[in-house]
């Protein structure tokens, strides 16, 4: 696990000095993170990097994981889809399952933090244990257009928190509590993002039988309908009429996402027998994901809905030209025509891919801009700073805080 000093060559020493200044202001406070899965998905990934770094800075940080049955996670997956605005049949029984598991966790989860930082809807009901400490609800989901039955159910919990955190402005709601905008981040030293020698990249491509004979278009994502793997295949087929290329669809599944394998099968079916489409199930294969992104000519993220879309940051950090949907937190990462191309449809995605494939200099320039944008705004060092500011804001209601 990287130490905070190791980020100095990437972001400069003064940035790390600032983090130390802030950490010093949090001395004596215990931060307790709670989420629903120790591995898989963006939340666990961020916490697994962030918690040790906060500790390294001297902020007493702990991470607890709630427990839930398969049935509970089926319900929370339905909630997830409903919050993303997808029509979902949610009945009283689902809410009962949610509350039953929440009650079990209220009995089992020990709350000891001065600041309790709850991630996503699964552990949201733990707020019932609020005492004199401060509670934050971190929503990693796009709730710009939520299914109201589910949102109203969750809102009754949210309003009891001291603050809520969202990843994009459009996700904010009219709430009686403070709401902050904090983007997630990538770790430039993790296996998923660190520099790789060409031999490693070649080795990974050989392992998955992917020849480097033509341009490679890649989407790295969990197999989830909201990531639109079918739409990516359609866009690839439109591109393929004019530019011979390969498509890689690669990703894992999370323990709290029971739908993943079904979507993977659907993607395989749609790809039929096209030998230039490579569909890879890569659970927890960070180094391989890194290699595939680095081997790509163009990276795509054609999500229908997106919490933030960290795969976009990952690709931009590798200076790749990225085509991505104008959804969720993606427009924060891509400024259209400056640091990537945004799209709204299969046809738009295909057109943007062709622009990149046919204009390598343009693609390179946007990729380079994108990398600088990520360096300034979406690396874990900025995220650490924002979280420490968030913790401090709980004790300072004013707009200008003198520390």
């Amino acid at each position, binding site marked *: 696990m990287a130490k905070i000093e190791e980020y100095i060559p990437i972001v*400069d020493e*003064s*940035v790390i*000095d*600032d983090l130390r*200044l*802030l950490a010093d*202001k949090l001395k004596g406070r215990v931060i307790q993170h709670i989420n629903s899965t120790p591995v898989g998905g963006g939340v666990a990934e961020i916490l697994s990097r962030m918690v040790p770094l906060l500790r390294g800075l001297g902020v007493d940080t702990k991470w607890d994981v709630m427990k839930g049955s398969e049935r509970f996670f089926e319900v929370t997956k339905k909630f997830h889809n409903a919050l993303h605005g997808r029509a979902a049949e949610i009945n009283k029984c689902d809410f009962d399952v949610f509350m039953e598991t929440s009650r079990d966790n209220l009995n089992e989860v020990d709350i000891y933090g001065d600041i309790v930082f709850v991630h996503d809807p699964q552990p949201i009901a733990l707020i019932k244990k609020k005492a004199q400490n401060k509670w934050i609800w971190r929503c990693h989901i796009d709730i*710009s*257009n939520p299914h109201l039955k589910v949102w109203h159910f969750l809102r009754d919990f949210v309003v009891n928190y001291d603050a809520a955190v*969202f990843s994009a*402005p*459009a996700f*904010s*709601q*009219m*709430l009686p509590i*403070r*709401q*902050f*905008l*904090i983007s997630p981040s990538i770790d430039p030293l993790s296996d998923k993002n660190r520099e790789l020698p060409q031999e490693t990249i070649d080795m990974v491509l050989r392992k998955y039988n992917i020849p480097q004979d033509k341009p490679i278009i890649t989407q790295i994502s969990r197999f989830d309908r909201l990531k639109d793997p079918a739409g990516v295949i359609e866009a690839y087929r439109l591109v393929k009429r004019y530019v011979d290329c390969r498509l890689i669809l690669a990703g894992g599944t999370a323990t709290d996402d029971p739908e993943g394998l079904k979507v993977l099968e659907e993607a395989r079916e749609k790809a039929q027998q096209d030998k230039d489409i490579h569909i890879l199930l890569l659970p927890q294969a960070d180094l391989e994901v890194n290699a595939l992104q680095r081997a790509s000519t163009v990276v795509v993220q054609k999500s229908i809905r997106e919490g933030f879309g960290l795969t976009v940051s990952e690709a931009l950090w590798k200076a790749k030209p990225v085509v991505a949907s*104008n959804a969720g937190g993606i427009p924060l990462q891509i*400024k*259209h025509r*400056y*640091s990537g191309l945004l799209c709204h449809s299969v046809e738009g995605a295909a057109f943007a891919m062709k622009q990149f494939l046919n204009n390598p200099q343009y693609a390179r320039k946007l990729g380079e*801009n994108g990398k*600088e*944008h990520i*360096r*300034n*705004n979406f690396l874990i060092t900025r995220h650490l*700073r*924002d979280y420490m*500011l*968030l913790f*401090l*804001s709980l004790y300072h209601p004013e*707009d*200008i*805080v*003198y*520390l």
Partner: protein
Amino acid sequence: MDSGIPKAKEPFKFYTSFHLSELTGLRAATLSQLAGLLKEVSGSCIYHHTHRFLQQHQYLSPEPPNDFAYWVSEVLGEDELGEKLSSIDTIRFSTIRSLREKIIETIEGYLRDNPFAKLRFAGQGEEFHFIKSVSFVLPADYAAYDLIEFQEIVSRITIDSIYFHIFESRLRLEKGANDFSNWIENSLGNKKLADEILRLDPYTHTLEELRKKIITLIQKHALV
């Protein structure tokens, strides 16, 4: 050893500031709504939307100078108004209040001259979201007594510190001029250098360019 360079009685103490974005839940889909909310939101919102780009897009040039201009041009397609908003000379305003009035006046004046612009609206998900900036100001543990020390610290301190002393202190804390010019004139008595730094339009530089310009000016004066 005495370098012969003037020493200040009071050192320049460097501060730094960090910003957290607080969401207000307020959003506008039309120019009339935008102008209406601009009158209601806190000064911290106006500050956020006119200064956010400086820190977040410091590598890009040219950049839309404020969020209002970007939204009006890119989402509503009102390029002329977008240009008017982006060319508001922020450095001429010494308070957020006066800057806010200028922005509102620009939008309302445009709507009077172009009534059809009222019919433009943003699609779902493309509304303007009002965000306010929460600033955290803290000492950076650096102090300078003369221009040599000052230049040395300016060359290695974070751009957040430079940002604070040049932009935030002047406008948000309403000090009239930037902190660097204030100290150089009042504590070192070097009005010429103070004025030269004052004359820079910081809004048309990236922060790193600004750092370089300030260092060049100090070197020119410190070595005289």
